[in-house]
């Protein structure tokens, strides 16, 4: 038989190994700028459990060109979940780079508990894409105020796509409490066939559901 056994051997700390372990905070931060991509990923990995890791990771994100290292940093920030980490992730939502933006959205959606404290700020952001994201994330929040926040959005938000996203979610989680705001929204955007269509759908779902 051609099966052979070799136990995964512990990695010894050699200068040449990209995964060597015994490095202090400063070494690891320096290593974030290493030429070798694998070395950068391991520096991210080993920084993650250390206190104050968020700030250097966020800083690196601004320059990092490798998608795999960026993914490692975004996930590390999600795992850390402190204030600086979440602020760094949210900052990505404003990036020019669509890939980074989408990746950050996916990562944030997986950690609703960390996003909840800032959701109000996000729902009032000046950038409509950030507000759409905030509505999207409400879906994963399972918070008692989700419906209230959605109603506020459709009452106040000037942007049609933000409102449309909120209506979609309301048609799933909305109750009779949302009915007046939905009817009002139809009046506010009466010239827009799409909003009228989705709002009618939401109204019907909620009304049918409450019977």
């Amino acid at each position, binding site marked *: *038989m*051609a099966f052979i*056994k*070799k136990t995964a051997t*512990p990695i010894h700390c050699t200068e040449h190994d990209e995964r060597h372990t015994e490095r202090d905070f400063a070494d690891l931060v320096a290593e974030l700028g290493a030429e070798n991509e694998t070395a950068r990923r391991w520096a991210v990995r080993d920084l993650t459990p250390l206190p104050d890791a968020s700030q250097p990771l966020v800083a690196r994100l601004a320059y990092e060109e490798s998608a795999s290292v960026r993914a490692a940093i975004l996930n590390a920030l999600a795992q850390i979940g402190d204030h600086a980490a979440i602020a760094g992730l949210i900052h990505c939502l404003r990036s020019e780079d669509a890939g980074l933006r989408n990746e950050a959205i996916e990562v944030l959606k997986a950690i609703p508990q960390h996003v909840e404290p800032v959701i109000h700020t996000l729902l009032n952001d000046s950038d409509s894409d950030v507000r759409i994201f905030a509505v999207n994330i409400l879906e994963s929040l399972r918070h008692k105020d989700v419906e209230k926040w959605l109603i506020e959005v459709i009452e106040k938000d000037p942007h049609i796509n933000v409102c449309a996203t909120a209506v979609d979610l309301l048609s799933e989680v909305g109750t009779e409490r949302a009915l007046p705001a939905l009817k009002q929204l139809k009046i506010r955007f009466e010239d827009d066939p799409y909003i009228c269509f989705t709002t009618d759908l939401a109204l019907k779902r909620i009304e049918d559901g409450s019977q």
Partner: protein
Amino acid sequence: MTAITISNEDFLKFKEFFYRKTGILFDDSKRYFVDKRLIERIQATDSENFRSYFTMVRFEASGNEFQNLVNTMTVNETYFFREEYQFKCLVESLMDEIVSHKKDKSPIRIWSVPSSSGEEPYSIAIYLLEYWSGINDWDVEIMSSDIDTQIIEQAKRGHYSARSVQHLPKPFLAKYFRHENDGYQICDDLRSAVEFSRVNIMETSEVRAYRNMDIIFCRNLLIYFDDASRRQVAEIFYDAMKVGGFVCLGHSESMSRISSLFRVRKFPEAIVYQKPLEHL
């Protein structure tokens, strides 16, 4: 003696702790399952109540009681030739593609994680022997790991119930097993074909040594995790693999939703995930 109970608050504390350590997330529907096992461990350790037990688990340097807790909380359900279409994919598509990219004669490395009681890695070995002619020309290393130390001991022993082997074709049962009074003993050749080890997939320090894998089987683990932990596992696998390597997940699990690091590859037998050949 007053009966030991687990309050809502205790449950939440435990759930948070266990999730952070293992990636396994218990929702409220698992409450009964968790309470029952916690109470068993509290009694087995002569602890007074949940609080004293929980303090001991968190601060005990050896980690022994944490390991006992893990061993009772894991779900080890598995059997030979489970989700067989993936083993077909392995021998009909994946192995040949791996070989075609190889630049030297180094062994092909397969990691089956979680192993549970070993049915999965042994099924891989049987499939390779029976259905992949390349096994005569190439060396293959099969490694297999699990967080549960008790189940790994069982895997190494290789003794199985009738239920566990029920999907194996009879000729294979005859060829690779010995019928023993209360079950089936796998032959020594297969036992020595797989290297078992204890690994918590969520611990960076424990997975660091696993590298250069050509194929990873990770089936029926991610179902116990939430998306945040699944994303961490995707990162860990990426680092454990060679470029061009494949990840095979269980049929209800998907990588594309949780990670952009891998490419979806559709083979006639199965969908698998590939670490891209070119750098991302």
